């Protein structure tokens, strides 16, 4: 994908979560873009703007040559073409893992119950949730919930998969399970934008990095360039800080 943001501003009261963020992946065809940077730097907000869950107060985003819509009807269509995975999983607690996947397929994407059911089982099995299809989220572990959430996001074959710190709430074992799934998806050709603190994972899987701090995009470059020679002092400190104990 080709991704370009110009002067993005998103304010919450007096606080600007995005404060004039601009970046571009240029002519480089990016498959997996990692959003890195300190907490509170604007990663989640930027991801929501890219996924049309939030409309920026100022600025615009251009994805593969077209501007993302700011009005609700267009944004809804855009969201229906994306898959979104949250830090807190956000599965629907009153539905089983299976129903969490089939309900949007049937109601949003017009699939029949049979088609939706087949697609749900295919994904749940692929993501290692065989035998857990008919459990409610509260009966699943965190890693299983996050894999079910990834299955839900993947079910309608999204153009773009957006993941907001998908492993921040998981222990190291579960983190590994979920990162394995994401790596497989990336290797399978899925376009992904991922906000994360897992820099060793980003180094292996991402081909482009946007480094955000205080609502601004301080760096935007290929993963090799960013991890090899970070330009800004802040990015160097961030990488050093995160690699100190791993």
């Amino acid at each position: 994908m080709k991704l370009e943001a110009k002067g993005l501003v998103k304010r919450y009261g007096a606080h600007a979560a995005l404060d004039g963020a601009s970046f571009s992946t240029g002519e480089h065809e990016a498959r997996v873009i990692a959003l890195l940077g300190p907490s509170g730097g604007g990663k989640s907000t930027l991801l929501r703007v890219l996924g049309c869950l939030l409309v920026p107060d100022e600025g615009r985003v251009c994805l593969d040559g077209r501007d993302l819509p700011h009005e609700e009807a267009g944004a809804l269509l855009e969201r229906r073409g994306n898959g979104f995975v949250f830090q807190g999983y956000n599965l629907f607690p009153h539905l089983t893992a299976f129903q969490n996947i089939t309900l949007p397929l049937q109601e949003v994407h017009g699939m029949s119950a049979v088609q939706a059911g087949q697609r749900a089982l295919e994904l749940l099995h692929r993501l290692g949730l065989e035998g857990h299809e008919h459990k409610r989220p509260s009966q699943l572990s965190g890693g299983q919930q996050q894999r079910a959430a990834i299955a839900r996001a993947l079910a309608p074959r999204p153009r773009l998969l957006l993941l907001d710190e998908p492993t921040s709430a998981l222990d190291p074992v579960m983190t590994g399970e979920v990162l394995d799934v994401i790596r497989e998806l990336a290797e399978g050709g899925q376009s992904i934008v991922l906000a994360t603190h897992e820099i060793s994972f980003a180094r292996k899987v991402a081909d482009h990095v946007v480094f955000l701090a205080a609502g601004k995009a301080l760096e935007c470059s290929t993963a090799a360039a960013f991890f090899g020679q970070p330009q800004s002092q802040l990015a160097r400190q961030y990488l050093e800080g995160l690699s100190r104990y791993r």
Partner: protein
Amino acid sequence: MFLAVDYRWNWAGVWKYRSQFAQGWLTTLGLSLAAMVVSVAAGFLLMLGGRARWMPVRLLCGGAVELVRGSPLLVQLLIGYYIIAEALHAGFPLVVGIAVLGAFHAAYLAEIFRGAVESIGASQLEAARAVGFDRAQTYRFVIVPQAMRRALPGTTGQLVSLLKDSSLLSVIGIEELVQKVKVMNAASYAPLEGYLPLAAAYLIVTLPLARLAHGLERRFAYET
């Protein structure tokens, strides 16, 4: 206690009125059931109206809720029947009674429903948007199913109150259970023999209603 006050029972005196009693009981049940349907439907609409995007609708629904909750049911019944229905030439006491009783409890239910709906977290609403649900789908598939369980205990209590409040409908000439018992007392001078079965007749309905609600709560139970 009855011995202490030296009460002389006269069950034979009231037994004659058993068919009147049964009639009153059926009237109470029938009109309460109708008013319950009205109150739940109107309460839901008032809750939706209170959350509408268009401010006049929000103000209208919010104002109606406060007005109805802030004034006595008795006054609403008298105004509803002797003024509004009279002016509209729609003087069927039963219809007016059901409408006023339903509207009165709808105002309370609207607040119970609002509380339940507002307790659904922002992350659920965001997830609903993320999977591509529009506003109506979000209500139908995400908010209402989850809010229903949270609203259930409050709603049951409100419906039990509605059933008991139906006794006030005697003021507009509806011969429901309490009115029948009053008539019976006037004739037989045996108040307790009338009022004790009256209490039992309400409990026969309200206790199973509460049990049913507990059953439903368990059925919908899931951890969030």
